[in-house]
């Protein structure tokens, strides 16, 4: 039988084997003028106006492939989305791969394929990259870090500290789907058929919204720590309070069921393609319409508002009519053991 090709330490020496790995797995999949020169750094042409947005994000995911996505896709979208959350148009990314010895080359190809699709979907170019190999047991298959650069048009002023009392808090789609997909898959629970990750590039939908709501104050993707933790960060950064209505926070039945089963609060479950927009009240309606008009915003809705009370805190009006704090999560979300 045909023997599976695997990554070996020799692929990490920087010599010919490394070159072969890069050529056979990566180079042709991402071909573009800046990358193809294969220089030590890519040269790109910048625009004259606005700010450069610059970001980097590392990705460690187990399992590498999950229902609705994989590590390559979220590595690209993660950085694209970080840029988009500053109102930037993401343009270029660079990727670094830390590969564990023994990983099948075919797996790496699948990941590279998925990243290539993700870059073209998001409209960015991968212009630089690097691979390193670590000994077996020293990595979880592959770790991917992606840095990215984008341009923010001069008229935008989006910042975590910009939320104002009276602002409206919008969300683009249901929460908790991504985290529960990963968690149920890891725990071997049979939710695969109904749960899928929400991994998505958000630059398109953000651009649509900013067209009609150029005075948007804050954008933030509700990734790690979930909606609850992210809103806390914003409340502290902007020195304002936030009031949420539990009934208006969208969540799909399957994710809700999985949360109930594992004893997890969906407000703290990680998301990938979910973001919040904090907009001034006079732009809230048009912003919401713009979100709803985009495929990644079909579940868009208004979930709460910014207030000048209880500064630095997020308060939830529960479905039952109680009021309670939504604190920030510390550490990891863990399935209950009691």
């Amino acid at each position, binding site marked *: 039988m045909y023997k599976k090709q695997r990554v070996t330490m020799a692929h990490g020496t920087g010599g010919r084997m490394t070159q072969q790995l890069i050529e056979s797995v990566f180079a042709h999949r991402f071909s573009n003028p800046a990358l193809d020169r294969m220089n030590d750094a890519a040269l790109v042409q910048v625009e004259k106006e606005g700010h450069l947005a610059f970001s980097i994000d590392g990705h460690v995911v187990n399992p590498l492939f999950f229902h609705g996505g994989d590590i390559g896709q979220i590595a690209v979208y993660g950085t694209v989305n970080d840029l988009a959350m500053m109102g930037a148009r993401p343009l270029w990314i660079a990727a670094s791969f830390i590969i564990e010895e023994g990983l099948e080359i075919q797996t790496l190809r699948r990941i590279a394929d998925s990243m290539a699709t993700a870059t073209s979907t998001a409209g960015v170019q991968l212009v630089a990259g690097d691979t390193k190999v670590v000994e077996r047991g020293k990595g979880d298959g592959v770790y991917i870090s992606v840095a990215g650069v984008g341009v923010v048009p001069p008229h935008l002023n989006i910042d975590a500290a910009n939320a104002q009392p009276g602002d409206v808090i919008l969300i683009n789609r249901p929460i908790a789907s991504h985290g529960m997909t990963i968690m149920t898959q890891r725990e071997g629970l049979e939710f695969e058929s109904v749960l899928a990750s929400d991994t998505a590039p958000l630059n398109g939908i953000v651009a649509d919204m900013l067209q009609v709501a150029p005075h948007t104050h804050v954008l933030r993707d509700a990734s790690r720590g979930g909606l609850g933790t992210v809103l806390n960060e914003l409340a502290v950064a902007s020195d304002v309070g936030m009031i949420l209505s539990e009934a208006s926070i969208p969540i799909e039945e399957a994710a809700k069921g999985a949360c*109930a089963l594992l004893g997890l609060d969906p407000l703290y479950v990680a998301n990938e393609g979910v973001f919040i927009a904090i907009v001034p009240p006079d732009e809230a309606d048009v912003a919401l319409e713009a979100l709803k008009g985009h495929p990644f915003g079909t579940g868009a809705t208004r979930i709460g508002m910014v207030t000048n009370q209880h500064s630095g805190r997020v308060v939830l009006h529960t*479905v039952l009519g109680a009021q309670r704090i939504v604190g920030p999560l510390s550490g990891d979300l863990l*399935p209950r*053991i*009691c």
Partner: protein
Amino acid sequence: MRFVDEFQNPILARKLLDEIAEMATVPMSFMEFCGGHTHAIMQFGIRQLLPSQVKLLSGPGCPVCVSSQADIDQAIALSNIPNVILTSFGDMIRVPGTTYTLQEASASGSDVRVVYSPLDAVQLAVENPGKEVIFLGVGFETTAPGVAASILEAARLGLNNYSVFSMHKYTPPAMKGILNGGEVRLSGVIGPGHVATIIGSDAWRFLPERHGMPVVVSGFESVDILLTVHELVHQVANGIATVENAYTRSVLPEGNLAALKIMNEVFEVSDADWRGFGVLPLSGMAIRAKYAHYDAKVRFSMPQVPSREPPGCRCGEVLRGIVEPPECPLFAKACTPDHPKGPCMVSDEGACSAYYLYGQSN
């Protein structure tokens, strides 16, 4: 998955609340045994929706929290034994030992790994034949069968490098400890739903029979909990005391016999040291001599570490239901989830972490 909404139905919840308010004409206090219930009650904001006559007290049902300081220190010290991979559920990792946490031990070079199931730890033992894999067995009757199954699996595979450090405990003795201590006056008990799934609702019959106290086994959604409180208030108001099961979609009177069989095959009853209670007779699960090969306490000479509970921490009293977390002077000041002083602020079942995360807004 439709079942969730049925048990979160706000209209039904309102109706139950109204009826509770009508029936509760005298003051009554109920203890929610289980830390999962404490979290759910805080998450749904149930305490503030109940009439002032009805008080809910949190109890000892947080496995990590009730582990004695000595057990925690020993568990952490096990990670220092050369050639050991120490595996644990995530909850234990940040629990403060007398001098450091497992997380800190790991950062200083110990091999500590979080697993999602004890069977993952067995798998690690298979993959690392040259290492000793120890699993920290924490939990009540809920997790004990799974840990027992991991020992049976290790035996089946003929492994020589897998063992369990058992801190497992039985829940009824802690409830008895609280009632015998007489520090809190209780009118009834919200029975732990997941524990009862294993041991059965009948295991709580001692409450009405010996203490004249109603107990209602509850699920974890808002309507589950309100149904339970409704039944408790009804019983108290009418002078009745029985075991009721309000979590029939999971709990049988006799429990899960298959799980109990596995648990009893591997574990035997022993005395155990509880935070907040001291040694409670016949409350612990020790690994039977037959499986001594898989018992970390037999396999390794147990490191003796001087143990001291965190100064100022009132976890012990929180676990006995006599103080609420905000009454602890350290709560939300010196003690936060980022810098926890005691286990009740770390564990997802701990009352302090629930109060911190979900405290009332006023």
